[in-house]
């Protein structure tokens, strides 16, 4: 029996693995986040361990053009030689690393070190840029630190009201819904979403007896909605002026900035009736401790964050929480619902283009000196800032000639994915570490088979900032190895000036030293210590500390101890409606699948539950387009077309269509999405673009065919 956690999302549900005939079987375990619950992905997670097409030997593309099995020595020697050749010709920065938010802390840390010390490239970033970065940027700006939830998830259950902006937790993190139970029973759940998603349905009166509020904001208008709520808080005298005076700076600017967002203007922009806005504002204010409530919580998800004004949208959410005096108070606060399994830890230990371990900034001389000291190298050897993910992908085939991919499947998950495919095919070297042949691995020159969750030791940091242990239950199949081993070997072959440990506990100890004194301080943690506590420990956890379940109770992380309120201005979608593209496309997730689907599409039960992509559209729009339920529908932007079956539902706005993005091929939603990014966070605008929608058999007549692959690739 092995006590570990689910491989998928940031809830990191506790589970127990028991040896079985097939390998291991999964049973849920009572853990604070999942309280004994598991969704279908978790229950079936062991199936991925025995995926029939599991990669078990290193593969190198041979002369035939196919990937052919070779020995580890051959594979790694080949990679090292190609890296040397590329870097000799084009410089160190010509080789890049693309990481993932699903990697353990140890792997994420080692990957950042590998890029900076062994490859000496400034080009490293990761898929967390698609997931978390706007909330991270806003959190750092406001609070001086970025921990998704600065309080244990269970605190939410004590609140009177919860505002969920752009998050479909009922599909993405089902066991989390348990924590919303008491709030729903009080009628205190407010969900902002253009769709009547499974989460929005939690506000239906028939589902709770009490009912909450569903604000069906037009895509891309979340920030306006939040500014409108804050306007009402000011207009109706609901702000916690005492808290604002004692614990924040910038309130005067922010208060003035919302003077322009009066209710009927906001109703007109967002499509949310004024009466609902007023009810939502009062519901939140009445729940705030300052006004005698039990607590109010504001939470954002990707729906709010994945916009060109995503950082400002999250900032507006934080400003609302601060105006109501929530952060740092019992059963109250602002939080971001981190998505990927280790989306939190993954962004703390050096995978980000501008960061070193412990959330240190790479352009800070002190930070460089500290980390270089731990690594035993000269600080001047460390490269400078790289560029965020979308910009990095834009350099492929140009400035960047070689790419390592770890724990990501950019061919499906990146915005404007057809353009990414074109650029990737221009690379001189693509090395992919994966355990199944995902879409990106299939294009690789070298595929290195790696261990999965149940085959390795390590730590993960969940959406609460709770550091917990991932434990090994069985041996990996064939010749699969941990990335820690692979990176150590490659580093040696590349004559790295620093040593690379391979034992996860030892790597963690090094990580802890590197993080000491940083914003995400892990120096009081070790595998042994985490093994001794049942429920994990929360960072910051400096040496000698027992961790920090609740942050901000006394002070915020800026030097003056105050939260910084910043006035924001809403932006329009980068790709907004026009006469020939009069409908918004929004993208999102289904319960049965995770991210690009590389893992979950290999589980029969999940494919039975959710076999293919679809286009959700309103009956009014369907009738106008002569589309019947189940017809193939083409959704087209200048970037590409996705074709999938129509699912006609009144649960979506008539001016908007929805597609899940878990599938490659003809129905790939990210062929259509826009790669415009937030100027602060670099996060792409997955959540809104303008499209034309037509029945697929009519679409080819109406639109030009998608751009051919031969088209010139922008540099």
């Amino acid at each position, binding site marked *: 029996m092995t006590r570990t956690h689910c491989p998928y999302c940031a809830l990191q549900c506790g589970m127990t693995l028991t040896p079985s005939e097939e390998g291991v079987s999964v049973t849920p375990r009572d853990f604070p986040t999942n309280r004994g619950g598991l969704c279908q992905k978790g229950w079936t997670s062991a199936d991925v361990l025995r995926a029939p097409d599991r990669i078990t030997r290193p593969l190198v593309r041979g002369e035939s053009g196919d990937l052919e099995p070779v020995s580890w020595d051959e594979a790694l020697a080949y990679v090292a030689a190609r890296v040397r050749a590329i870097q000799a010709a084009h410089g160190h920065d010509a080789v890049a690393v693309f990481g993932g938010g699903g990697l353990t802390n140890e792997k994420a840390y080692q990957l950042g070190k590998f890029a900076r010390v062994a490859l000496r490239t400034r080009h490293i970033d990761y898929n967390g840029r698609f997931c978390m970065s706007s909330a991270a940027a806003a959190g750092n700006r406001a609070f001086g630190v970025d921990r998704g939830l600065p309080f244990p998830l269970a605190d939410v259950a004590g609140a009177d009201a919860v505002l969920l902006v752009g998050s479909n937790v009922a599909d993405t993190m089902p066991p989390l819904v348990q924590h919303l139970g008491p709030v729903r029973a009080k009628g205190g759940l407010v969900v902002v979403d253009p769709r009547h998603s499974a989460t929005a349905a939690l506000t239906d009166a028939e589902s709770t007896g009490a009912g909450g509020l569903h604000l069906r904001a037009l895509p891309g208008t979340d920030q306006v909605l939040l500014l409108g709520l804050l306007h009402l808080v000011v207009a109706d005298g609901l702000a916690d002026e005492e808290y604002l005076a004692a614990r924040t700076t910038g309130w005067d600017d922010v208060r003035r900035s919302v003077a322009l967002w*009066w209710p009927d203007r906001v109703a007109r922009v967002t499509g949310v009736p004024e009466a609902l806005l007023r009810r939502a504002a009062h519901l939140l204010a009445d729940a705030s401790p300052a006004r005698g409530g039990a607590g109010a919580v504001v939470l954002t998800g990707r729906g709010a964050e994945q916009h060109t004004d995503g950082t400002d949208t999250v900032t507006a959410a934080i400003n609302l929480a601060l105006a109501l005096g929530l952060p740092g108070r019992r059963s109250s606060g602002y939080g971001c619902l981190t998505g990927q399994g280790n989306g939190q830890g993954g962004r703390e230990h050096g995978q980000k283009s501008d960061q070193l371990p412990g959330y240190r900034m790479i352009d800070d001389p002190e930070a460089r000196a500290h980390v270089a000291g731990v690594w035993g190298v000269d600080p001047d050897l460390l490269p400078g800032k790289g560029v965020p993910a979308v910009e990095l992908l834009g350099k492929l085939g140009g400035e960047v000639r070689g790419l390592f991919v770890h724990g990501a499947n950019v061919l499906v998950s990146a915005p404007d994915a057809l353009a990414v495919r074109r650029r990737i095919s221009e690379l001189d070297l693509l090395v992919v570490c994966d355990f199944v042949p995902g879409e990106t691995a299939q294009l690789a020159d070298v595929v290195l088979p790696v261990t999965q969750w149940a085959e390795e030791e390590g730590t993960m940091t969940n959406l609460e900032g709770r550091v917990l242990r991932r434990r090994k239950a069985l041996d990996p199949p064939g010749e699969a190895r941990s990335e820690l081993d692979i990176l150590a070997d490659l580093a040696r072959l590349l004559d790295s000036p620093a040593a690379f440990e391979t034992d996860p506990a030892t790597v963690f100890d090094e990580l802890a030293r590197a993080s000491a004194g940083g914003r995400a301080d892990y120096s009081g943690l070790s595998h042994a210590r985490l093994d001794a506590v049942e429920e994990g420990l929360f960072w910051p956890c400096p040496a000698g500390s027992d961790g920090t379940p609740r942050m901000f109770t006394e002070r915020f992380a800026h030097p003056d101890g105050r939260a910084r309120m910043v006035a924001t201005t809403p932006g329009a979608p980068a790709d907004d409606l026009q006469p020939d593209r009069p409908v918004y496309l929004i993208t999102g997730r289904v319960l049965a699948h995770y991210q690009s689907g590389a893992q979950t599409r290999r589980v029969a039960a999940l494919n039975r539950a959710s076999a293919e992509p679809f286009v959700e559209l309103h009956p*009014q729009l369907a009738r106008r387009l002569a589309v019947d339920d189940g017809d193939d529908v083409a959704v087209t932007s200048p970037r590409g077309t996705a074709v999938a079956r129509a699912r006609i539902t*009144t649960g979506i706005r008539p001016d908007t269509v929805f597609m899940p993005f878990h599938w490659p091929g003809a129905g790939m939603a990210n062929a259509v999405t826009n790669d415009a990014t937030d100027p602060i966070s670099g996060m792409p605008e997955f959540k809104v673009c303008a499209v034309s929608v037509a029945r697929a058999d009519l679409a080819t007549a109406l639109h030009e065919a998608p751009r051919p692959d031969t088209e010139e690739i922008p540099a």
Partner: protein
Amino acid sequence: MTLNAPEKASGQAPEKVLVIGAGMVGHRFVEELVRGDRDQRYAVELVGEEEYEPYNRILLSDVLAGRSDLKAISLPMPDPGRVQFWRGVAASAIDRESGVVHLSDGSTRPYDRLVLATGARAFVPPVPGLGVSDEGGQPRHVHVLRTLDDCRNIAARAINAKHAVVLGGGVLGLEAACGLRRRGVPVTVVDLDAHVMATQLDAPAAHVLAAQLADLGVDVVTGTSVAEVISAYDELVAVRLTDGRIVAADLMLVSCGVRANVELARGAGLDVDRGVVVDATLTSTDPRVHAIGDCAQAPGGMPGLLAPGWRQAEQLARMLTEPTYAEEADETAGPAASQEPVRLKAAGVDLVTMGVRASTARDTDRVITLSDPAGRRHVDLVVRPDDRGEPTLVGVTCLGAADVSATLSVAFDRRTPLPVDPLALLLPDGGRAEESTSPVRMPGSTTVCRCNGVSKKDIVAAWEAGAGTVEAIAGRTRATTGCGGCKDVVCGLVDWLNASDPASPLSDAGTGPADRPLTDATSPLGGGRSTDVTQRNITAPSTS
């Protein structure tokens, strides 16, 4: 269409831009100019006549109604590092030859480029006793509502007022009337037109609105005006209407529209008509002088509302900061002022109008009307094919239907595709169907446990295979083991299954769920109470 915007900042002294008027349009222009002027090519000065910090004039009627706090209407102060802001001084004259503006405090400010955003003032009609046409001043307690001071004075008077008269049944007059009523002051609105809001509303909608106002306690008198304002010792006591009636009043608000503030421009010899005459680039007859907002008379007419004034502010700022903007400018002109949405902001009234009215629709337009006077609702929609033949929403009058007004605004503003039958636009949320959640009535294919993809059919099958409790069902199907949200439904299903089957495991203490012989049970889905059912159809209740 280009302006002679300066090319580069390097080596040159910044160009002095002087903005007269710190109202909402002047304020917006300064913000946009500073935002766009990254190279600091411009040195910006703003002159505002009021002592106050800039504020949101639109919300004054809300403040009057006690619906908004003063704090909620203060606008951002111009960045002191970029803008010199002179408050509480008026511009008294422009000397275009020397490029200076004389201020009321005796000082002068030089300019390279002058932007007039002097706005408008309330129009007070020449009514005997109002003191506009003769020398006497206005009697006390007669007000207009244009500035924060006006708002404060009216609110102060409302504390002791016994009856108020509002002259003018336009949007502002009605908002103010509702606001005064909320403060407990009886109000009579007097409107010369046949019905209120005659500029925006057709008679049927206006009549419903009048009824709604009456419900709120606001008295509306139409087709008449004030013939004389009667005062004693300079204090207002009553008004005499043109139909002879006398209405006692100790508070009066004159809300009869506005007149552009053009004296400054006229005195400087600029071309002035109803407003300062400007061309499509918002430039007056002097290339160094622009005008925007309520004081400007552009080729498309006077803005009259905030949104077109803001668009002019943005347009001018972009023309000064973006070299490539000029070519786009024609396309961004936006709808004419008559197309702008107008919303009546008053507690208890939800009214928005935009675009074409029903009475002015073309024969080929589709006009959909919902007339529900007793329910205090009236909706007119005007749908017209655009130049590509796509039907678009070109007119909305929406009263008392708050559920749909926001949706209609979005469809009007963004020209999103309309339903084939525009009648659907009248349904909130596009007509979302209610779904049955009763475990008994839901079809077998309905998903009960979303987390684990378990349908009602699966649960019935598990029950039939012997799982007679929620825990046993969970063990077999994993239902309830995710978020637990379906526990009630599964409980309901199990209760219902057990209740319809006296031989169920729960009522038969001696038999464990797994051992329960299938043949002893009656499927509740099968109907009937036979004891020898060996096969059940779990999806089609009618066949057994």
